[in-house]
């Protein structure tokens, strides 16, 4: 497959989306396998990218492998479109592909994310790409890779509840708030990347394709559209998401994930939506003149 770009402001001397076509093809094969086995971690030959590990090299490689000239890209970091990581990655793809970028969740065909799922529900045909630092959920339980793979192969996930047990024993409730373990398609245990557990229910039966890339750990996994994603819990301590006593102080939303922002050194603080696009869209709707 040959893809050429005509955009004038793209970089000379680089292939479309930075990676060479053979690498992209290798990554696409890994992605196809990952989609075929929901939640299973597929090893892939992760490449050296022009930014450090931990900054989203896995997500970038997945995006680079699937992006085409007609795609519209949105990149978020902690829900926001304008933080360093998001701005850099968005600009990286704008320069190496020339594709249109957007901050609107609804307009995007590919959304690369770190730590959040947008509040606006995703729809059919969209792809969300997660940046994953550590893909192996069983790692804290079992340091040996050979053993964790065997545990996945045999579906031995019972001991995973030990972690939740510890939380309840020490805190009275399941205190884990992010990177909360899920079972995909009633088979594989999956680490949802460090999204807040608030976002876990959004993964369940989501119409969008969800892809996960871990660059340093060289793993790709996926949740195909309309796939069951269940968060682990106990019968007497069911899974719960975070709740706030506040509404967003900018848009008044009561249904979104809120960030606590410290305003000064006297302890003044405010709660605002972590999803900047969602918050802005709500404010525009309330006061069309402000926009």
């Amino acid at each position: 497959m040959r893809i050429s770009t005509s955009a004038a402001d793209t970089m000379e001397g680089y292939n479309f989306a930075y990676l060479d076509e053979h690498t992209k093809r290798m990554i696409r094969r890994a992605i196809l396998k990952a989609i075929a086995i929901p939640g299973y971690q597929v090893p892939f030959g992760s490449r050296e990218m022009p930014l450090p590990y931990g900054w989203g090299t896995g997500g970038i490689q997945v995006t680079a492998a699937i992006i085409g000239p007609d795609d519209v890209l949105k990149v978020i970091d902690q829900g926001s479109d304008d933080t360093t990581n998001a701005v850099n990655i968005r600009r990286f793809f704008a320069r190496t592909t020339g594709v249109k970028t957007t901050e609107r969740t609804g307009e995007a065909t590919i959304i690369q994310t770190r730590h959040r799922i947008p509040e606006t529900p995703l729809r059919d045909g969209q792809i969300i790409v997660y940046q994953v630092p550590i893909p192996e959920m069983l790692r804290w339980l079992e340091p040996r890779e050979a053993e964790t793979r065997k545990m996945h192969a045999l579906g031995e996930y019972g001991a995973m509840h030990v972690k939740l047990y510890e939380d309840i024993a020490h805190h009275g409730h399941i205190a884990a708030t992010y990177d909360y373990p899920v079972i995909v398609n009633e088979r594989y245990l999956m680490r949802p990347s460090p999204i807040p557990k608030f976002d876990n229910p959004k993964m369940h039966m989501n119409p969008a394709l969800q892809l996960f890339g871990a660059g340093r750990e060289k793993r790709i996994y996926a949740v195909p559209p309309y796939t069951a994603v269940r968060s682990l819990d106990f019968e007497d301590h069911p899974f719960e998401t975070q709740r706030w006593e506040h509404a967003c102080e900018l848009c008044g939303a009561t249904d979104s994930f809120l960030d606590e922002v410290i305003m000064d050194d006297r302890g003044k603080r405010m709660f605002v939506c972590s999803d900047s696009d969602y918050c802005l869209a709500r404010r525009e709707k309330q006061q069309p003149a402000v926009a």
Partner: protein
Amino acid sequence: MMTETPLLEIQNLGYRYGQRAACVDISFDLFPGEVLAVVGESGSGKTTLLRCISGQLRPDTGQVLFQTRASETVDVWAISESARRWLTRTDWGFVHQNPRDGLRADVSAGANIGERLMAIGARHYGNIREEATAWMNKVELDTARIDESPSAFSGGMQQRLQIARNLVSRPRLVFMDEPTAGLDVSVQARLLDLLRGLACDLGLAAVIVTHDLAVARLLAHRTLVMNAGRVVEAGLTDQVLDDPQHPYTQLLVSSALPA
């Protein structure tokens, strides 16, 4: 008493490390509720034997047959790995010499006991905790310390915790590798007393590997004496220890310091 079928049947088991034979042609039966001691000096193949029969090390020759809860006899090394691992979490227990090998050091005592329950499907926190508390009582640990990490426990307490962690799934067969080594004498005595009580109350069968003849005498109904990978003498514990027939057993018995 012993009209029933054996719980564990070892037939002509052999294992070599390269050219060196660790276990040669070992056969024995173990009946439900029976405690068997395997004694012998260091390097005689005791631990290799234990690893072969407890599903950790595939023997080169021979068979390990086990009668499951459902009264069906399985060849431990012929069933799927998944089924074998299931056995080790349900019907079997394994008590390591060093409690650190058998415990999860970074989670609380309660979680250590509850792990097996969760591994076999328990999903009710309250019930798991109740069971953990009950087992702490049974092994004489202070239940107020249920949320403490095992590293806060003494060696003897860690060993008792390890035993509780194994027995919580009500295994019918427990393997023990030098369970009392590394404990001081008074703690040893208390642990042996506890083990004897539990084995008796729960009708546990056990294979205990030890170099301590006193442990064998106190706990075991029968004793196997191993030397250079072979079983040189087997019989009722009192018989073997009081009237040893094989020269090596005689040496072993006469080497023990009088208590």
